[in-house]
């Protein structure tokens, strides 16, 4: 990986310009995404100031009065602050710990299957759920997990007692993360499978010659081969850390599981969009993003130090 050297020699900029001029066609192609970023990602940053103002519709963003950190303080002092933070962090942390390794395992498994037809079939079966809309997934969950649903019937047949999976705080995280795994593992494994197919077959043969067992070959050839991809995907996942699963959490939420399902993003929706408190929720959203940025920096730094792969 290249690092910018700050003490670049004179003439460096003009050389850069010359290089750009030579490959102007490539830079023209870059222009469109850059404009897109500016318009949709940097432009709206201008509106962030309402987090520090009492946003008044009539006076607009610039004309509203400054409120300083009032909205932030209101959030930090809110009864729900610690609960929101705790739930947001634990749901995502558990997702990362439990759900992240599973597509990798699935990819390794599919890669080891010698029967092509079977491996294709398995791959298709596991990634089809990805295409089901979240509303439908929640509908399926509601039916499957209701007190008279198949899961409860099975539990009772095995001697367990009736469990309200969707209406208890204790089960929420399991249901949420479990169904996420079911829905996304196939889809997420595709990238790993592609990376695995890029590993030089001679490495496997050499390992075989040295007498390495299957597990040994996975451990010493396959895994190191896809480690850069794993790290990059991990960092990208952390980039979404504080936002994932908003719609699904909202749809699964009810008063009985709110204790463990109330997260920052749904709180922003219910107080901001539904009750029109724009400044307050802009402040919460900003706080959310700051936490996310810190997490991203930590993971990236950690990755850079330990595995030589990182985003920057």
């Amino acid at each position, binding site marked *: 990986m290249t690092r910018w050297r700050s003490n670049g020699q004179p003439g460096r900029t003009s050389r850069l310009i010359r290089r750009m001029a030579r490959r102007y066609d490539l830079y023209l192609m870059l222009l469109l995404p850059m404009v897109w970023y500016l318009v949709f990602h940097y432009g709206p940053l201008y*509106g962030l100031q309402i987090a520090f103002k009492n946003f008044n519709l009539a006076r607009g963003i610039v004309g509203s009065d400054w409120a300083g950190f009032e909205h932030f303080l209101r959030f930090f002092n809110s*009864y729900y602050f610690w609960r929101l933070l705790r739930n947001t962090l634990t749901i995502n942390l558990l997702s990362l710990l439990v759900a992240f390794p599973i597509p990798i395992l699935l990819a390794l498994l599919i890669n080891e299957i010698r029967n092509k037809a079977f491996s294709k079939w398995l791959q298709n079966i596991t990634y089809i759920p990805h295409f089901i809309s979240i509303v439908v997934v929640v509908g399926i969950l509601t039916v499957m997990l209701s007190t008279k649903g198949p899961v409860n019937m099975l539990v009772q047949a095995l001697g367990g007692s009736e469990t309200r999976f969707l209406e208890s705080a204790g089960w929420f995280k399991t249901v949420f993360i479990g169904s996420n795994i079911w829905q996304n593992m196939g889809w997420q494994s595709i990238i790993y499978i592609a990376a695995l197919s890029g590993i030089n077959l001679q490495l496997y043969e050499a390992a075989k010659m040295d007498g390495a067992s299957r597990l040994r070959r996975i451990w010493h050839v396959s895994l190191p081969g896809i480690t850069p991809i794993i790290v990059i995907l991990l960092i990208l996942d952390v980039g979404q850390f504080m936002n994932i699963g908003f719609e699904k959490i909202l749809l699964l939420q009810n008063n*009985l599981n709110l204790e463990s399902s109330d997260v920052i993003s749904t709180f922003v929706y219910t107080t901001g969009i539904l009750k029109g408190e724009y400044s307050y929720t802009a402040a919460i959203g900003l706080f959310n993003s700051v936490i996310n940025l810190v997490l991203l920096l930590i993971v990236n730094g950690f990755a850079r130090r330990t595995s030589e792969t990182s985003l920057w």
Partner: protein
Amino acid sequence: MRKPWRRNAVWTMVILGLVVSGCSPGAAGGKEANSAAPAAAAATVSKTGYPIVEEPIKLKMFTRIAPVNGPFKDMPVFQDYGALSNIEVDFIETPTDGFQEKKNLLFASNELPDALFRSSLTPLETIRYGTAGQLIPLENLIDDYAPNFKKLLDEYPEIRSGITTPEGHIYALPAVVTLGAARTDKKWINQSWLEKLNLEEPQTTEELYNVLVAFRDQDPNGNGEADEIPMTARASAGSGQGIPVVNMMSGSFGLDQQLGYNINLIDNQVEIWMGSERNKELLVYLNKLYNEKLLDPEVFSHTEAEYLAKQASGKTGFFFDQTNNPFLDIADQYTGIAPPEGPHGDRLQSQGAPVARDFGAFAITSVNKYPEATLRWIDYFYSVEGSTLLRFGREGEHYELKDGIPYYKEEFLKSGNQAKITPYAGGGAPHLISDQVASYINPPQVQEAQEKLDPHMPKVRYAAPMFDEQTAQRVNILRNDIDKYYEEQSTKFIAGAQSFDKWDEFQATLKKMNIDELQQIYQDAYDKMEK
């Protein structure tokens, strides 16, 4: 520098890109609200008679469409009234699900229609958007351009106090319900089950409990299966709206609902009762019903459609609804009962709406070029004639008059299109509901059910007070936390997800959320009202 033109081209493109993105509407955040322009068009609006305007005009209105409604443009009321008034209305229809979200985004993005029809604006929203200049004040226009509505204001002074802000502005018109039976949910009990099991109508909460146990255990529908739902109720309509089953039963425990909130009025003192011992008793009672499967286990989670289907299924023993319309086919099995008497002798019909039932049902925005004509347009629906057109459609085709009162024609009801042709079905439409236009929602059975409730109604039912903008904002901040907490914890107490050992903690947390400050704000508002 072999090809300088190329380099220049690249830089031109980059700079152009920057400039274009900088100027794009996406980056240009807030816009100034358009100032109200009471146009010169006023001159051509006739104050009486029809058409309202000589030259046809077009208005854009934002509206909510309920699942039972058909497209608004096909409703006879808007077709016929459009021809009569010379005002053509183009409705922007938004489904009930997600309506609240769309409505707020409309104001936030300042892309306003000419008016909002059936908009369920909250008092805070009207004050917020009114002071921001997005809604125009109507109080001065009402005298000249809304004779029917004005008549109602004079007849029922409580309407005016319920919709006027402390600054004296009226930003939105409510639905006016002079028919008492349209302001309460009746307590429907399965009469045929009672008869079959040789039971009397329950008079106390204890008797109600026994009746529900019998419904559960003695297979009143005689199919050999325990598929009866002894008692059910609506699930909550959303945060801040309370828990319906609590609201329906609170009167038996001496808990009234005044000022549009969980408030008891005793000797001019406002008491928010959420943390009171009486409320604990109510929740303990409901918890007992829930634990013993007397109260529908899905009472917090079923959808509105599922709840209505349960009513129509005939498998429910006891539930709450305004009319008998959802279970019309089996209506003769049911009868309305009085509120059961609670352990302390309370027998109050606490649930109920004020005369101005649906607040914020209609509002005119600042972009409207014809506010006078628009107000006259809506005013028609506050007359019996206009309300008849809105609710019943065309005489001869949809309804016929018997003793001067419109009734839907049998053939039309059989077609199953009743709710499709009228915007009242689904609730919240701005119009007058009086006994003259209520033959369908107020048949004799519903009247009898209402008569059972009448002796137990509070003497005065105060509507939610209007606060000034600052107070409204404070109430909003307080209630955001308190209502969310109250609803979540109450649900948990009832469902047994939390034991009553936590009651002290519940009370303490309410205190910490400044429930006393909220009580004081309501007290001040009440005092102002009484003066």
